[in-house]
């Protein structure tokens, strides 16, 4: 079932892609092929694969149970928030929060998660920003 849903969604995306790709147009034409055919060939081949996937016997896909899915969703949201707040909160604070959140999700005691969060945020910031010269944001709220 998941195979067919995926194939159907992918087919629609390919068709949308073909419409967008068809409008690629270049003003100069000093080479026979130009920028348009290659993506269109790829999209058609993908569409063909999707159709074949749709028609054949689907594989069994074992998705995790509802409670694991719920935790997965939480993890995804945490990672997205982390990415979104990375610059605003700064690396040390956002990493502390992320480590605490993931720690709780993976079954750590709250104090262990909090401690490792503070250590991770501080230590990684110091290691990368100060020792290794990789510039990381300190957060707009601090400056």
């Amino acid at each position, binding site marked *: 079932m998941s195979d067919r849903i995926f194939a159907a969604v992918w087919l629609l995306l390919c068709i949308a*892609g073909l419409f967008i790709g068809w409008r*690629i147009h270049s003003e100069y034409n000093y080479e026979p092929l130009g920028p348009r055919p290659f993506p269109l060939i*790829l999209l058609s081949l993908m569409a063909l694969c999707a159709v074949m*996937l749709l028609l054949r016997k689907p594989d069994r896909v074992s998705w995790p149970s509802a409670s694991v899915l719920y935790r997965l969703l939480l993890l995804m949201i945490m990672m997205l928030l982390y990415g979104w707040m*990375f610059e605003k909160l700064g690396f040390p604070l956002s*990493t502390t929060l992320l480590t605490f959140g993931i720690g*709780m999700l993976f079954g750590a005691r709250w104090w262990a998660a909090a401690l490792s969060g503070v250590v991770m945020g501080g230590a990684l910031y110091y290691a990368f920003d100060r020792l290794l010269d990789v510039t*990381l944001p300190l957060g707009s709220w601090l400056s």
Partner: protein
Amino acid sequence: METWTFLMQGFAVAMTPGNLLIALTGCFIGTIVGVLPGLGPINGVAILMPLAFALHLPAESALILLATVYIGCEYGGRISSILLNVPGDAGAIMTALDGYPMAQKGQAGVALSISAVSSFIGSTIAILGIILFAPLLANWSLAFGPAEFFALMVFAIACLGSMMSHNPLKSVLAALIGLAMATVGVDANTGVYRFTFDSVHLSDGIQFVVVVIGLFSVSEILLMLESTSSGQKVVRASGRMMFNLKEATQCVGATLRSSLLGFFVGVLPGAGATIASAIAYMSEKKISGGDTFGKGDIRGVAAPEAANNASACGSFIPMLTLGIPGSGTTAVMVGALTLYNITPGPAMFTEQPDIVWGLIAALLIGNVMLLIMNIPMINLFARMLTIPLWFLVPTIAAISAVGVYAVHSTTFDLLLMVGLGIFGYILRKMDFPMSPLILGFVLGEMLEQNLRRALSISNGNLPILWESPISKVLLILAVAILLLPPLWQRWRLKRAPLTTE
């Protein structure tokens, strides 16, 4: 003789204190990544690749770091196979079959030391193979034109597609997804924007680092949440740590045979350490004749370890000589080279000898380091298995984010990383292999450029693509490799009911 001069030049590069330190770090990190179940060479190389770039390492040092991590992983994978019965990486699956029974018999130390030595022999033979064959192959492929390269890339993708999974259709689709993702961004020849949706962040294309980290780090984290710990106890390596002379002589034949086999399997695009170690184990089992394999036979530990290390080193050959990676891990390394504006390919041997030969010399040095590290420090590495996931996972997440942020310093890249990670998780759950996808993404631009260049030469006449004998052979092989296995399976299925009747 020329090779010798170049090799010495390579040692001059690899022996600088900085590069020696980098090789040592790479070996150490590689072994740890290999030990941790779930994290394999491709994850380790993917996570470290942007960091190497962010640290402004010169190209040869970055490549040395990634290569030593790669071979370190192949060493590390055996430790958890033997002590925990959970392979640390895919190449070490076979090692668990005899390694864990040996550990249960109290011979963990023996299994670990013999596998370290056979790993060393396997890699050394394969590196000697690189030194002998790579320059010849590079010389030969210098004559390749765009049409030949186009055929070669199609062949490499077909190989990886058909061998990486039981599911050729999904592998091909994965490779196409990778190729299609590579077309996003400004077209180099005409300056036309393709599939950018008027976003500034996409005008430069989807960043390679973001794709690699998303697919191999973020999606791995999501998979880790799912895998429940099996609760198996780590066997402590105690008692006799070294193998004795009798055990060593028992393994010589198996190790040498498996090393050669592993090397040749590694050179082929598509077939990697996993396949090499499986073939080596099976054939040694046949040669032994007895039924001791699977019950703690020492040869069953030595053979797959020699093969998987040899094939890891062998897989550098197509990458260095043709610029076409034959495995997911070397695909990431090729992507790393392009970050440095180095186009991997046959010209590298003449134009960038420092990088090529420095890498080969570093492989030899790293191998010695790994052998020295992997016998006395085994208990230190085994202790890594006790790191709890609630500490390990946030570390991976934060380091991945640092790597991605360091490239362009935008929030957009971080969000795209998470998005690709979720996409990768769904694909992996549905049994889409990731190696063809990343290979497609790495080769996408080169494939299109070579296709367009070939057609420019011929003024738009398609036959140029298959006119030369080399491209003809490669294209026919590519089609055959994709079509034959499913047909063969169908034929066997049809035959099966007949024979049972």
